C-alpha cells in the first residue's frame, strides 16, 4: 500500500496548478458563466498543446497512453479553479465512450482530434424524465435505407453548443434496454441546439433531433447494446467528476481556513472558537475521505481491476460530502461568503451541479445496494 503521489505526479499537479492559477481566475470563471461560448479558445489550445487532452488516449491514436489516475490529478486542479468549458464532456465522457465502444475506424478518425484539441464532443443522454436510466430514453432511431432517422429531444446536454460531435443515446427497439449510441455531427441537418440558463452558468443545452439522418457506420458499439457502454461511461465519468469535486473542495478549504485564522470577533480569531474548529475539522474529514475514495477508484480503473462498486461508493460519498463541506464553509465565514464577489459562491453552485451529474448520492447508494442484495 502507498498513499503518496510519485514525484512525477507531484510535478503534474504543480504545473496544472500554475497554469490554471494564472489563466483561470475567479474573474475568468465569472466572465465565462456570462459568455455564450462559455470557454476561452486560447486556454483550450494551450491545454491541448500541453497534452492535457491526450491522457486517456492510446499512443497509436496520437495520445500519451491511457492514464486515468494522472487524469484525475488534472481534473482535481480543474475543479480547484472551476475551469469552464467542454474539457470534461470531450476528454472524459466523449473520450471514454469512444475508447469503450468505438470501431478502429471511428477511433482512428476522432481520437487524434480529441488529443490535439481539434474536436469537441458531448454525450446526449438525459431526456424529460431527468434520470440516468434506459427507461428514460425515448428519443427513437428508425432504420431506413441503410440510415437511421433520429427524432426526439435531449435535455441537459453539456456543451453541445460548441461541440463538433454529439454522442446520442437513442431507443432502437421497444425492449426497455435496447439503446443504441450514435455519433452525430452537430452540424447535421435537423439538429437544433438551445442553450439553457443554469445556476452555475455551466453550459447545458436542449438538443432537438428532427428527423436527423445518421449513417449506419456511425453507430458506436453495437445496435441495441448501448446501455452497458453508457453504464461504464457513467461510472468512470462519475469517478472523474469526483476528482473535480475533491479539487473544488480543496479550494474551499483554502478560502475558509485562512479566513477563520484572520477574522477576529470577541477579541480573538474566530478559528480559536471550538464551535468553529469542529466545523473545520468536519470539513477536513469530508475532503480527506472524498480524496482517498476517489483515488482508490481511479487507481482501480487504471489497473484494470473491477471498479464499479468503488465508483458508486465514491460518487455517493463525494456528492453529499462536497455539498456539506461548502455549507460548513458558508456557515463559518458568515455574511461575506454570501456575497457574489466572494469566490465561495462559485463552489456552492458547482457542488450542486456536480452532485447531480452522473448520478447523485441516492442513485449511487442504490447501485451499492444492488451489489449487496
Amino acid at each position, binding site marked *: 500500500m*502507498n498513499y503518496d503521489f510519485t514525484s512525477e505526479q507531484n510535478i503534474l499537479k504543480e504545473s496544472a496548478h500554475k497554469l490554471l492559477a494564472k489563466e483561470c481566475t475567479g474573474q475568468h470563471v465569472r466572465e465565462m458563466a456570462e459568455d455564450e461560448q462559455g470557454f476561452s479558445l486560447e486556454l483550450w489550445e494551450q491545454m491541448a498543446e500541453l497534452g492535457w487532452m491526450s491522457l486517456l488516449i492510446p499512443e497509436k491514436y496520437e495520445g500519451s497512453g491511457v492514464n486515468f489516475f494522472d487524469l484525475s490529478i488534472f481534473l482535481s486542479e480543474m475543479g480547484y479553479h472551476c475551469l469552464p468549458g467542454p474539457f470534461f464532456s470531450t476528454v472524459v465522457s466523449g473520450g471514454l465512450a469512444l475508447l469503450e465502444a468505438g470501431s478502429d475506424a471511428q477511433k482512428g478518425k476522432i481520437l487524434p482530434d480529441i488529443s490535439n484539441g481539434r474536436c469537441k464532443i458531448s454525450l446526449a443522454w438525459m431526456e424529460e424524465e431527468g434520470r440516468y436510466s434506459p427507461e428514460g430514453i425515448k428519443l427513437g432511431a428508425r432504420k431506413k435505407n441503410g440510415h437511421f432517422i433520429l427524432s426526439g429531444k435531449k435535455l441537459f446536454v453539456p456543451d453541445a453548443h460548441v461541440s463538433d460531435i454529439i454522442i446520442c443515446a437513442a431507443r432502437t427497439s421497444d425492449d426497455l434496454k435496447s439503446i443504441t449510441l450514435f455519433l452525430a455531427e452537430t452540424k447535421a441537418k435537423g439538429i437544433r441546439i438551445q442553450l439553457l440558463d443554469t445556476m452555475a452558468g455551466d453550459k447545458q443545452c436542449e438538443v432537438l433531433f428532427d428527423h436527423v439522418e445518421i449513417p449506419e457506420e456511425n453507430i458506436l458499439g453495437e445496435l441495441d447494446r448501448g446501455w452497458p457502454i453508457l453504464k461504464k461511461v457513467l461510472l468512470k465519468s462519475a469517478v472523474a467528476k469526483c476528482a473535480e469535486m475533491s479539487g473544488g473542495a480543496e479550494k474551499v478549504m483554502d478560502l475558509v481556513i485562512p479566513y477563520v*485564522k484572520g477574522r477576529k470577533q470577541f477579541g480573538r480569531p474566530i*478559528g480559536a472558537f471550538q464551535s468553529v474548529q469542529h466545523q*473545520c*475539522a468536519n470539513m477536513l*474529514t469530508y475532503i480527506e475521505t472524498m480524496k482517498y475514495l476517489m483515488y482508490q477508484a481511479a487507481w482501480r480503473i487504471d489497473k484494470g481491476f473491477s471498479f464499479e462498486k468503488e465508483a458508486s*461508493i465514491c460518487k455517493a460519498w463525494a456528492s453529499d460530502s462536497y455539498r456539506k463541506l461548502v455549507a460548513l464553509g458558508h456557515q463559518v465565514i458568515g455574511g461575506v461568503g454570501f456575497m457574489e464577489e466572494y469566490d465561495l459562491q462559485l463552489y456552492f453552485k458547482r457542488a450542486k451541479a456536480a452532485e447531480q451529474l452522473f448520478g447523485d448520492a441516492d442513485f449511487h447508494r442504490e447501485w451499492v*445496494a444492488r451489489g*449487496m*442484495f
Partner: protein
Amino acid sequence: MDFHFSNEDKKTLKEVRSFIKAETTPELIAETHKLGHIYGGKEGRRFIRKFASNGWLTPNWPEEYGGLGRSAVLNAAIREEMAYASVPVVFVAAHMAGPVIMHFGSDEMKKEWLLQIARGEIEFSLGYTEPQAGSDLSALDIRAVLKGDRFIVSGQKSFNTASHVADYHWLAALTDPDAKRYHGMSLMIADLKSPGIDIRPMTTMAGWQTNEVFYNDVEVPGKNLVGEINHGFFYLMSALDYERMYPLAAYEKVFDMIVKYAKETITGGQPVSKNPIVRQKLAQIKIQLEANRLLYYRLAHMVDHGQIPNYQASMQKLFATETAQLITNTGMEILGPYSQMKEGSKHAVLSGQMENYYRTSVVETIYAGTSEIQRNIIALRGLKLPSK
C-alpha cells in the same frame, strides 16, 4: 498510490484467518464478549500465546524483539482480522505501549519488555484517566516520588479498563508537581500485583467491567521509567496516536449480520432488503466502511514511512466510532422490537447481540479521547487553527 496488499501480506492474512478459524472456541468468544474485547482472560491468553508465536501480534517489529520485520500495513490488517473474528482485539502492550517503548525506551527497557510483549506473555492496562483528569490528561493528581532506585506512588486512577486482568499498569503519574503544565508527568510500568494496589470494579452499562485503581505507597522500580523523567505527557500523546488506530471490523461483522438479516427476513410479503429506505441506509454504511478503511490504512502507511500518525489518527478514530454507532442504531431500526431482545430471551434474533452492541457502542466515541477532543486535534494539529 497503491491500495493493494502485497502478495506476501495476502498469504500471511490467509494463514491468520485459518488459524483464527481453527483456534476460536466458543469458550474464547464467550470470554472475549464478557471482558469487552480486552485481553487477559484465561482463554484469551492461551489463544494469544499460540497466535503470537507466529509473530503475528507484532509483525512490524524487528525480529530481535519478536516481530517479523514486516509492515505496519500487515499489522493493521491482522488487527482487523482479529476484530472481525470476535477474539480479543485491544492489546495495550503490543499496540499502544510497545511502539512507545520502541521509540523512546532505553535499550535495557526494550530488552526487558518487548520480547515478552511480542510473545503475548504479558499484557498492560492503560493507567491514564483519574476522576478529575478525563479529557484533560494534564490535570493528573497521582504522585510518583523518586526515592533511591524506586518511585513511591500514591493516588487514584479511574476508568482503567483491563486492570483486573492485565499484568502491568502503563501508568502516567506526576513526578514534578511544581513544573509547568505538561512538563511534570512521567510514564512508568507498574506491576499490578504490587503491594498497596487496590483494584475496584466499575460496571459499565454494556455489562463489562472497568476499574478504579488505588495506589497507596506503591513501589515501582526506577528502571521501569519510560524514556526520560518528566517527559511523560509527550510520550503519552504519541501512545494515544497509536491507540487511536481503531480497527472497526468488529462492527463490520455486526453490519454483515444486519445485511444477512435483511436478506432473509420477510416483512409485508417481501424481504426487508427490498425496502428502498433500508437499502439506502445499509448502502450508506457500506460507503462509510470503505472510507474508514482508507483512513485506517493511511495510518499504517504513515508508520511504514517513519511517521507517527497525528491528526490523521484522530480523524480515523472519530470516523470509525461514529460509523460504529450508525451501524448499531441502524441495526436496532431494522430489527425493530426484536432488536431489544437480550441473549437467551424468547424471540431473540441474531443471538440477542444487537442490543448488546448498541449499548457497547456508546463508549466508542468517548474513550481514547471524545469526539470533541478528536475534532480539537484535527483543527489544531491538522489545520493549525489558533488555540486562542
